[in-house]
Structure formats: C-alpha cells, structure tokens
C-alpha cells in the first residue's frame, strides 16, 4: 500500500526538482497530444524548445525571447510577492491593460510634441495606472472584506471593454482612415520604447524586468518586510502577533503587483506592440501566474521560468508556421505544465511510503 507521510519541513531539494520534472512530464504529455493531433511529437517538441535557441534562424528568435520574457517576468515578480502572503491577484491582465492605456493616452494627448521628458512621464503614468487598478480590489478587501480573487478577475473584463472603447473611441487614430486602433507610437520618437542594443530585443522593459527581479530578491530574502510577508502567508495568526498589519500588507501586495503589471503594459504598447488596439493584450497577465508558480515564487526561479515560458510562445508560433499546429495547443501546453507542477509538488511536502503503517 502507498501512504503519504507529511514532512516536518518542506524538502528543499524536491522544491527545486519538481519544476524540472514537471517540464519533462509536460513534454511527454504534450508529445502525446501532438501525436493525437497527427503531428510528429519529436519534431514538434524540437521545433518548440530547440529551434528557437539553436535552430537555423535562431539569431532572430533569441531577440524575441527577451521581448516576450520581459513582461512575464515583470508581472510574475509582483504576483509572487502577493502569492507568498496568500493574497491572490489574478487580475494582472487588467492592470497591464490599464497601464498601457494611461501611458499611451499621455503620448497621444501631446502628439506630436517631442520632449525628452515624455517617455519617463509615460512610464510613471503606466505604473500609476496599474497601481490604481490593483488598488481597487485591495481597498475593497480591506474596507469591506470583499474577495480579491473575484474582484481582480472581474476588473479584467472591465479593463478589456475599456480598452475596446478606447481603441474605437477616444484614442482612435484621427488619420487612421476609420480603422480602429491608436496612432503607432513606434513612429513617435519621444514616446517610442526602442531596442536598446540592436538585435537583442532588449528594450527598457527588459531592464525594468531585471531590476524587478533584483528588487524582489532583496525585498523577499534580505529585508524584514519580506520575512513578514512570508510569515503572513504561512502563519497569519503568528504574523499578527509579530505586528504585521494585514490591511497594509494587502494594499502593498496588490499595489506593487498592479504597478509592475502596468509597467509591463506600458513598455509593450510603447515598444513591440506600438498601438492601442482592442486585441492589444496577449494574455501575459494570466501566463505570468504560471511563471510565478513555475519559478517557485522565487525571483531567480521566476527569471528562468519567464524565459522558458517565452520560449514556448516563440516555439508555439514557429510550430504554427512550420507544422500548422494550432496556436491553442501552446495554451494547453502551458496549462498542463501548471497541473504537473502542482501535482508533483506533493513530493515537496510529503514522503511517499510503501507498505503498511506502523502503529
């Protein structure tokens, strides 16, 4: 008989091994899925995971890697802080959209004035927009005790409709021949978030993501605030005795993750995307949740997980082109990864014993 015995302390080794096992298991399960879809599983896995890095056109794809990874890492770093404290912000997608709208609106309002102050101001507004959007569920939770999961998620749909409204209404390009969508910020020098080093894909957002990782590491592992956040998540009562104010923690975690998501949205709209359109958001806010868990809610882990997840995006695009694999297959792939990770996490917290229990 197989029994589970709870470990007194979660196993460190398993905690780092499970993401790797989960990735391997996902590749196998994904391969089976691709085989069911009538594709050669080995080739599909190679196209998704190997070719973007080492294949014939890898030079181009490596640049794309940073472009896709930056928003994921930026958002996930913020989310992980909240998840550690047991505060579930799952509305990062909405905060991302609002950040983009706020920053872009400023640029579109002053167009075509050129000024060195414009881009920094947009960055601040983007962060502020995401911060305020994240503050809504935080304040509702603190004042009325409303569930932050449901409110932050509902606000994603509100933000999406607001985005569509902006793209078709106030922010529409007046010289766009009636097409929906704003002016392209890539053609507006002061507002553009350019590639900093040619060919690498590194724009200001990549730098911001790196700073976020370092900042999160210092906060969570080298600062008393991080200790309090972790205690609050693991033993809320003990945290209260230690002087942690739950309300302040909620506002801090949702505000921080909101601001980082807003930043990610701003860098995206001013850079790779360039435009406010009704389909501007690409689901980074939701994928970042997977990134946070895959990275074990640890800043360095998130950095690696973000790169891996970006790889599946690019590999997914390639597989779509070369093997005509449906784009949704990658979404399934990412969902499976999270399932396997959560399932295998059992090994971190429990020992598996074979045989009968001793009395």
């Amino acid at each position, binding site marked *: 008989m197989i029994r589970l015995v*709870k470990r007194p302390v979660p196993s460190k080794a398993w905690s780092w091994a499970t993401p790797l096992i989960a990735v391997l298991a996902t590749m196998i399960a994904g391969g089976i899925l691709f085989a069911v879809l009538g594709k050669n599983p080995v080739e599909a896995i190679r196209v998704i995971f190997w070719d973007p890095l080492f294949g014939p056109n890898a030079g181009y794809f490596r640049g794309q890697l940073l472009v896709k990874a930056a928003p994921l890492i930026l958002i996930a770093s913020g989310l992980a802080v909240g998840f550690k404290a047991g505060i579930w912000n799952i509305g990062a997608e909405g905060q991302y959209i609002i950040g983009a709208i706020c920053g872009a609106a400023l640029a579109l309002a002053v167009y075509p004035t050129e000024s060195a102050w414009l881009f920094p101001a947009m960055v601040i507004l983007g962060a502020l927009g995401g911060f305020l959007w994240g503050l809504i569920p935080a304040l*509702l939770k603190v004042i009325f005790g*409303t569930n932050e999961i*449901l409110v932050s998620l509902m606000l994603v749909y509100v933000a999406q409709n607001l985005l569509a409204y902006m793209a078709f209404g106030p922010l529409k390009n007046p010289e766009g021949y009636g097409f929906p969508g704003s002016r392209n910020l890539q053609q507006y020098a002061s507002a553009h978030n350019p590639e900093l080093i040619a060919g690498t894909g590194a724009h200001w957002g990549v730098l911001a993501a790196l700073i976020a990782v370092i900042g999160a590491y210092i906060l969570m592992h080298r600062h008393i605030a991080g200790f309090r956040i972790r205690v609050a998540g693991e033993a809320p009562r003990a945290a209260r005795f230690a002087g942690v104010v739950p309300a302040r923690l909620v506002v801090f975690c949702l505000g921080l993750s909101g601001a980082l998501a807003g930043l990610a949205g701003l860098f995206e709209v001013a850079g790779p995307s360039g435009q406010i359109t009704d389909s501007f958001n690409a689901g980074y806010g939701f994928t970042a949740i997977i990134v946070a868990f895959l990275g074990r809610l640890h800043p360095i882990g998130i950095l690696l997980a973000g790169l891996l997840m970006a790889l599946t995006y690019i590999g997914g695009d390639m597989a779509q082109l070369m093997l005509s694999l449906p784009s949704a297959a990658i979404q399934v792939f990412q969902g499976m990864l999270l399932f396997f990770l959560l399932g295998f996490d059992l090994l971190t917290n429990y020992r598996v014993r074979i045989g009968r229990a001793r009395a």
Partner: protein
Amino acid sequence: MILGGIDIVTLIATLMAASTPVLLAATGELVAEKSGVLNLGVEGMMIIGAVAGFATAVGTGSPVLGFLGGAIAGALLATLFAVLTQVFLSNQTATGLALTMFGLGLSALFGKGFEGVRPPATGKVPFGPLSEIPGLGRILFSHDWVVYLSLALVVAVWAFLRFTRAGLILRAVGENAEAAHALGYRVIAVRLMALAFGGALAGMGGAYLSLVRVPQWTEGMTAGAGWIALAIVVFASWRAGRVLIGAYLFGGITALQLQLQAAGYAIPVHLLSMAPYVLTIVVLVVLSAIHRRGVQAAPAALGRSFHAST
C-alpha cells in the same frame, strides 16, 4: 408593455434564458463548495462543456445528447481537479486557475473545426394554450426544457442539502472534514462526487451557451460567465434559493444591457458590456459589507486540504 423603448415582457423572458448558463454552473459550484472544496476552474469547465456539447450535438444531431456530452466533459475536467486537490493535495486556488487556463486552451484546440457551424435547434417545450396567455405565457411557458431543468435542479439541490441524509453528510464534510472522517465518512469520496456533480452542471451551462444562447461555437465564448457563477455562490451566502435570485439578477442586467444596445441608446457598446461585471463587483462589495458584521456563511473547511494522517 413598453418602458423607455424596452419591452418588459421580452426582457423578463430573455432574462430567464440569459441566466440559465450561470444558474446551472453556480448550482453545481454550490454543491462542490458545500463539500468544502473551492473550485476556481468553473470557467474552464464551462468552456469545455460548451465545445464538447456543441461537437456532440452537431455530430449526433441531437441537442439532448449534446447537453449530456457537455455535462460529461465538465465532470471529467472536474475529476482531474479533484484528483489533484484531493489525492495529490495540491493548492486549490492554484489548481483551479490551472483548470481554467487548461480548459480555455483545450476548448480552442478542439473547437477549431466547429467555427461557423450551426447546431441543431433545441425546441421549446409545447405548453399548448398556456403559452398563449398574454404576458405570463411568454414569460413562463415559452422556454426550452433546459431552462425548466435548471430550475428543477435548484429545487432538487436545495431539498438534497436540507432534507436528505446524504446532504447532511456532504455538509458535515464541508464544515469539519476531520470530524466527518472520525465518524467514518469517506471525506475524499464525498468530495470527488460533489466536484464531479459541479463539473457536470458547469459543462451543461457551457453547452447551453453554445447550443441555445449564441448558438454557435466561438473561442473564449464563456467570457467570464464561470467567474460570475463563482461570485453568485458568494452572493447567495451558499444557499440554493439565493443562487437563483443572484443568477436571475445577473441575467437581468445582461438582458437589459443587450436590449439597451438594440434600442439604440447613445451609450457606447463597450461601456454597456461592462455592466454585468461592474454589477457583480458592486453586489460582492455590498454582500461582504453586510457579512462583516454577521455570521460567516461559508462552509468552515472551504479551501483547506484534507489529509487523513494528520
């Protein structure tokens, strides 16, 4: 009766149909949460139900089999969640989110071939002369069988939880899993069944969207309906009767918002489409403000893992 360009009878009649998907899903989730498990994957189970129901109905030509297919698909996905959270003891919040993402992806994958196809029509129940009654006939006797089934299910769940022994055991498991286990009840088995039932109803609700409401398959068509179902369970303070009120309130806003669009009011479409989500938030806030002072309405063991050895 016309009020401000809106026909009230039509509004109430559409309200019942518009509410049915969330009513089904919320009723199922109520049972799952009563057993002490918070399944945040309702959205994923609904959309899988929508695509599976659609595919079955188109394949067999029978809407009834379609709804059955949707229910089975939803239950299967719920079983996956149940195994992960109950056997592998994974975090319920995270697993529920994973279920939603997985369901959205899987449905998009399998739905590719069904875009633009029309499903077989689900007929209205023939009530004969009853449906000819002015006003009342259109409101009460002009619907398809799923609308009546969803109402019957609410009553059945209410009676099950309140009057039956099995319902009592389910609630005991949800309130105090350790005590129920000590009394010899099989906590995990009860929860597996409750979750599968919840998944089946969510799947059926999804199938109602793709087979009757829209009726078509489009990617991501549930558009948050599963999350609204979760909010309705909170709104209902975990009571079956109030689930009905919550679902119809939400359906009413959706129907009203669509009629306002049709009536040509000068409010941008996208701002009107926000209304159901904003309303859900407002209702949640009001409810939580009231409950702050009162007793906790949620099942006491909601969201906590149960492991027999501890």
